[in-house]
């Protein structure tokens, strides 16, 4: 008759497996083998050789496995290299296409200007060019201001070179999209006629935003340093910019966060055209032109010019919204 104790279920019965693992981590065969040895049983000569061979094989296998596992997967490296090559190739292709677009665009502009000149409306040509400059469609050259913003020096070079690299430590000294927005708006307020960031011309429809740590202008990421170039009156613009909200803002960025800011006047800046200003609205010219023809003939005359270029469409719209 067993004692009542053993009939009761042990408290930790459900953890028998865990207890087994925790309390008997060593192979029980070791104890059995030790007991056998104590009784005087010795393994034969063949057994010793077999054990040696097996042990060598085990060591070989494990070493090989560890070396194999520590090596980065070759497939990954190949895939990465392929992707990198593809990115480079596609980027080059995009650059070529962009150049092609710019060439065609200038061709269109010159053709449109020729057409307008041939039609005898010289005023319309100059008007179109002026609007093209103001809206950022055409490249411009002139004196102006150059502002260079750079992340604080302590932020580490990797982050400065690659905006997507994960930043370590404080982010305070990083140039943000907001900073560029303030600077650009300050430049517009100070009377800038054309603004570009890192060679990317801003139009009235441009957006300065951020994605992760990268700042995007028109959805294209920028690489630091951020160079903001503005063309405007060389006499008045620097003073007005410094006196306006953006000047003190830059000063506080420099003083409080260590952002590196350099503002320099330039006698000659060349900003590229933003191009691709799609024709969104076109209103037929209803008011009679200075020539004094009837309204019917005027509207029919303005129809081809509206389709010829966006600048002439803006002319017929005759609204001041195109100023940025």
């Amino acid at each position, binding site marked *: 008759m067993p004692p009542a104790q053993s009939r009761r279920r042990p408290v930790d019965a459900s953890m028998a497996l865990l207890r087994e*693992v925790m309390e008997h981590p*060593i192979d029980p065969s*070791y104890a059995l083998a030790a007991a056998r040895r104590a009784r005087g049983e010795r393994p034969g000569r063949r057994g*010793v050789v077999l054990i040696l061979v097996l042990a060598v094989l085990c*060591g*070989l296998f494990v070493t090989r*496995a560890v070396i194999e596992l520590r090596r980065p997967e070759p497939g990954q490296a190949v895939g990465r290299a392929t992707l990198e090559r593809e990115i480079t190739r596609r980027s080059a292709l995009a650059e070529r296409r962009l150049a092609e677009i710019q060439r065609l665009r200038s061709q269109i502009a010159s053709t449109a200007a020729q057409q307008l000149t041939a039609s005898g409306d010289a005023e319309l040509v100059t008007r179109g060019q002026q609007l093209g400059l103001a809206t950022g469609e055409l490249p411009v050259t002139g004196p102006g201001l150059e502002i260079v913003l750079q992340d604080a020096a302590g932020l580490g070079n990797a982050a400065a070179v690659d905006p997507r690299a994960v930043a370590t430590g404080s982010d305070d000294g990083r140039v943000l999209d907001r900073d560029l927005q303030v600077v650009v708006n300050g430049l517009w307020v100070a009377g800038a006629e054309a603004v570009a960031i890192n060679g990317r011309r801003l139009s009235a429809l441009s957006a300065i935003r951020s994605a992760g740590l990268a700042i995007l202008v028109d959805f294209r990421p920028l690489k630091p340093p951020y160079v903001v170039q503005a063309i405007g009156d060389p006499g008045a613009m620097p003073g007005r910019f410094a006196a306006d909200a953006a000047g003190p803002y830059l000063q506080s960025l420099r003083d409080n966060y260590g952002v590196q800011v350099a503002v320099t006047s330039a006698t000659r800046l060349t900003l590229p055209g933003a191009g691709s200003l799609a024709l969104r609205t076109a209103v037929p010219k209803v008011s009679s032109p200075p020539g004094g023809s009837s309204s019917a003939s005027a509207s029919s005359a303005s129809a081809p010019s509206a389709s010829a270029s966006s600048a002439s469409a803006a002319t017929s719209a005759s609204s001041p919204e195109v100023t940025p």
Partner: protein
Amino acid sequence: MIAAIGLVIGIVVGIVLHPTVPVYLQPYLPIAVVAALDAVFGGLRAMLDGIFDDRVFIVSFLSNVVVAALIVYLGDQLGVGSQLSTGVVVVLGIRIFSNAAAIRRHLFKA
């Protein structure tokens, strides 16, 4: 002792030579290494306990590796490969820790 010497010889040979592991064995390597580690720790503890035995060591080593690989294979076939691998790693990890603790007690009396 023979087994330990053999293991060391095997490791040295493995480092010097570069035999390749067949591709179809690749998925089982991580678990096999952990299982081998468990056998090594068990053997080390047995040695310190004074009950080490070559035959037992080799048999436990081989059976550990084979069973671990078998479990991973089974898991892969059933679609629960990663879960089963985790389970094996947990159990073997606990054993390695317990054995390491026993070895520590032997060596440092603490």
